Every structure is written in C-alpha cells, then in structure tokens.
C-alpha cells in the first residue's frame, strides 16, 4: 500500500498535469453547482426579500421554517428528488433521473432555503433602516423589496457564494439522484467518496485539494467583495 506522502505527491501531479479525468469531474461539479446556485438565486432572493418586507399572518412560521430548512440533510433532499423523478414518481416522465439535470434540481432545493433565509435577514435589516423613507417616497411593498435587493447586492453576493459553497461541497443528494455514473454524473464529492472506498487515494486527494482550494477562494472572494463595496459604496 502506498504511503500517504506518495498519494499526496501523485495527487499534486494529477492537478499539475491537468489530468483529463480530474478536469472533467471538476468541470461537471462547477457546472452543476453554478446552475443550481443561479436557479436557487432566482427563487430564494426574491422569496427572502418578500418575506422581509411583507407582513402577513404566519410570517413567523415561514421565517422559522426557512431557517430550519437551511439545515436540510442532503441525503433526505436526494431521496425526495429521487422519489419525484423515479419512473413511478410524478415527474418520472421527464426521464432525467441519474443525469446532471437531476443533480441540479437536488442542489437547487438544498440551497433555496439557505439563500432565502440569509437574504431575508439582510433585506430585513436594510428594511428597518429604509422603511420610512421608501414609504414616504410612495414605494409599494414589491417595489421596496426589489429596491432593497439591489441595495444590498454586495452582501447578497456573499450569500450566493455561501450557497454555492454548500452546493459544491455536498455529497449525499447528488450521489442518490446522480447515481455517481463514471463520466456522466460523477462530481468531486462523489468521486472522493468512491475512490477512497476503492483505495485510489491520489485521485480522491487531488479532488479534495481542488475542492478545498475552491471553497477557500470563494470565501476570499466574498470577503474582498464586501471590503471593496464598503469603500466604494458605503
């Protein structure tokens, strides 16, 4: 059996050589999670803003639910999407189970609550500051929500990065609905899980390094965005 240092060296060589298999897997991971984050943003951000600004019966329950759903267990989301998309399920006719599309759906469901809950908090804080002024100017509830979304855009960028980070690092849901099919639905996390159990540590480690680098990069980007916006836009 290889020593750990051998595996690490081999892993770094795979990365340095842009190993085709590794690159394909990284690309699929990025693609699936980027699309999922975009879709989730289209749903989650307006939802968060609407809940922040609107006053309706049961609002507290909605907020508590959104916050609770932030911790959705990925495997349960995977199971749910699997049931929906399986041949016998209500959406089985689309035949997209075990495809990247199914993975996009699972990740989207997983991070919509995260984007909605975090943006709700940010928009609501802004709302308490802007409410009187916007009301005085005659803004309706929906106009106010949209204004606040745009005005908090730099904080929301951080929220998007958090959602993307969660999506790309998640393993359970994509494993179930993607099926971890070599060359089709195998992403970084599922490959790491599989290769580790097979004992092929270099590829698992290489992907692990890429994943950690990506997550760190995202966090640096989030931090830099905030700092930059603070100096330029106050």
């Amino acid at each position, binding site marked *: 059996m290889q020593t750990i240092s051998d595996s690490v060296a081999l892993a770094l060589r795979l990365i340095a050589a842009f190993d085709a298999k590794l690159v394909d897997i990284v690309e699929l991971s990025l693609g699936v999670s980027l699309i999922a984050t975009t879709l989730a943003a289209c749903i989650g951000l307006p939802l968060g803003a609407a809940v922040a600004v609107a006053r309706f019966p049961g609002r507290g329950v909605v907020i508590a639910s959104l916050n609770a759903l932030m911790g959705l267990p990925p495997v349960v989301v995977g199971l749910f999407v699997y049931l929906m998309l399986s041949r016998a399920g209500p959406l089985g006719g689309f035949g997209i189970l075990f495809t990247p599309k199914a993975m996009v759906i699972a990740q989207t469901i997983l991070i919509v609550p995260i984007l909605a809950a975090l943006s709700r908090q940010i928009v609501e804080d802004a709302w308490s500051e802007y409410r009187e002024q*916007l*009301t005085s100017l005659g803004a309706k509830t929906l106009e106010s929500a949209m204004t606040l979304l745009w005005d908090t855009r730099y904080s929301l960028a951080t929220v998007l990065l958090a959602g993307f980070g969660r999506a790309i690092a998640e393993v359970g849901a994509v494993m179930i609905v993607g099926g971890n099919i070599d060359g089709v639905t195998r992403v970084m996390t599922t490959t790491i899980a599989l290769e580790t159990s097979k004992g092929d540590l270099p590829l698992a480690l290489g992907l692990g390094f890429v994943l950690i680098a990506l997550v760190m990069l995202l966090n640096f980007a989030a931090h830099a965005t905030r700092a930059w916006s603070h100096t330029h836009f106050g």
Partner: protein
Amino acid sequence: MRREPGPTPISVNGRSGGLPIVARGVSFVRGGTTILASVDLTITRGGRTVILGPNGSGKSTLLRILHGLIGPTEGSVTWNGASRRPAEQAMVFQRPVLLRRSAEANLRYALTLAGINGGDADRRIFEALIDVGLAEVARRSARVLSGGEQQRLALARAWALDPEVLFLDEPTASLDPAATRAVEQIVARIHARGTTIVMTTHNLAQAKRLADDIVFLYGGRIAERQAAERFFRSPQSTEAVVYLEGERL
C-alpha cells in the same frame, strides 16, 4: 382611518392638493406608553410650522402622523378632506436614508416612483443638485458623501419632487454648524418657492430663524400654538415658559 366630514377638496394648480392637513383628537400609544394625547392641529398653506419641545414630547411621532407614515391610535388626520395621504408630500429625516447608488440616481429613483421620467426628470435632477450645491458630486455614490452632503442630497431629492408640503424631522441634529447653516438656507429657498414647511427641532435658535409658527409639544400634548415671534417674546403656557427659561440657562 375613518373619513371625517370636512371641507370639500379643492384643486390648486391643477393638482388635487393635500392642504389643509387637519388632525383631530389624535392620540398615539405604543407599548402602553402614551406618546401623543388628543392633539388637534391644522396645517394651512404656505407657512413654516416648527414643532418644538423637549426630547420625548412626541414631536417626531406627530410629524410622522401628519405625513401619514403612521396612523394614529385614536382620532383622525385628513389631507384636504381626504383620509389617504397625498403624493405631493416629501419628508427629510434626521439621518438621511440614501440608496447605494449615485447621488443623481437617488433623485431619479424618487422621481420614477412619483411617475416623473424623461426630460422632465433630467431637468429636475440637474436643477435640484445645483440648488443644493452638489452638482459636482452627481456621479459619486451617495453613501460615501459626508454627513452634511448626504442631508443636502436628501433635501435635493425632496426638492426635485416639488412637494406641496415638506416635513423635516430634526434635519440638522447630527450636523456641524456649517452644514446646519447650509440646510437651513436650502429649507428657506424651498419655502420661498411655495412649499409649506413642517419641521421638528429642539434647537431654539433654529426655531427662531426658521419658524413662522410654533407648535409647542409637552408630554404628548400641545401646550401652546403661537406665532413664532410672539412665542419667543411672551410664551403663554407655563411649560413653554419653563422650557425657554431652561434653554437660556
């Protein structure tokens, strides 16, 4: 709010108009604390009314109720007989609330909400920014301007809307003397153009400089309403005498 029988709405300069503003028996209670107690007040066209009083006397709450931002717990407010707040009003707050976009875009946002677009909007933005001396920072982000500039920008935004009534809530409370002077001059010019001014302050010198009319609030009640000159010369209510005395010490 229930619609009160009142004078029939009249039209001024082609717009329906929201004056006079009539508050009848207005009370405001929050969390068991009475902030305003049966206030009767009428604001008529053209004047500069200053709502004066110590901290916690209910000045800001009364101003918000007159503007229609909040409804009274009891009593009613009507604007030229209507129970809905008219669009032809603007308010400037103690801390200016500006959007994270350029100074110019802040004005455009307010105008768009008011249904004013195109060339008319361009002209109003240009004029208002020149009037408050901010033309050279039109493209800068509003949030990075100094406190005084931000308040002037808030005034320009109100000015561009050409409101019938301008409400100001302690507009200079967090400004230095130079910025305070600039704000007072702008308010005077807005008034000179025919806008009715209603503002709160706890600054006596400012009230003397700006007011035609004083509404003196004490403990949520109007202790005295008087022409400004007379109020400062010979206040009628004990509360006002004590307040003016205290401020002189």
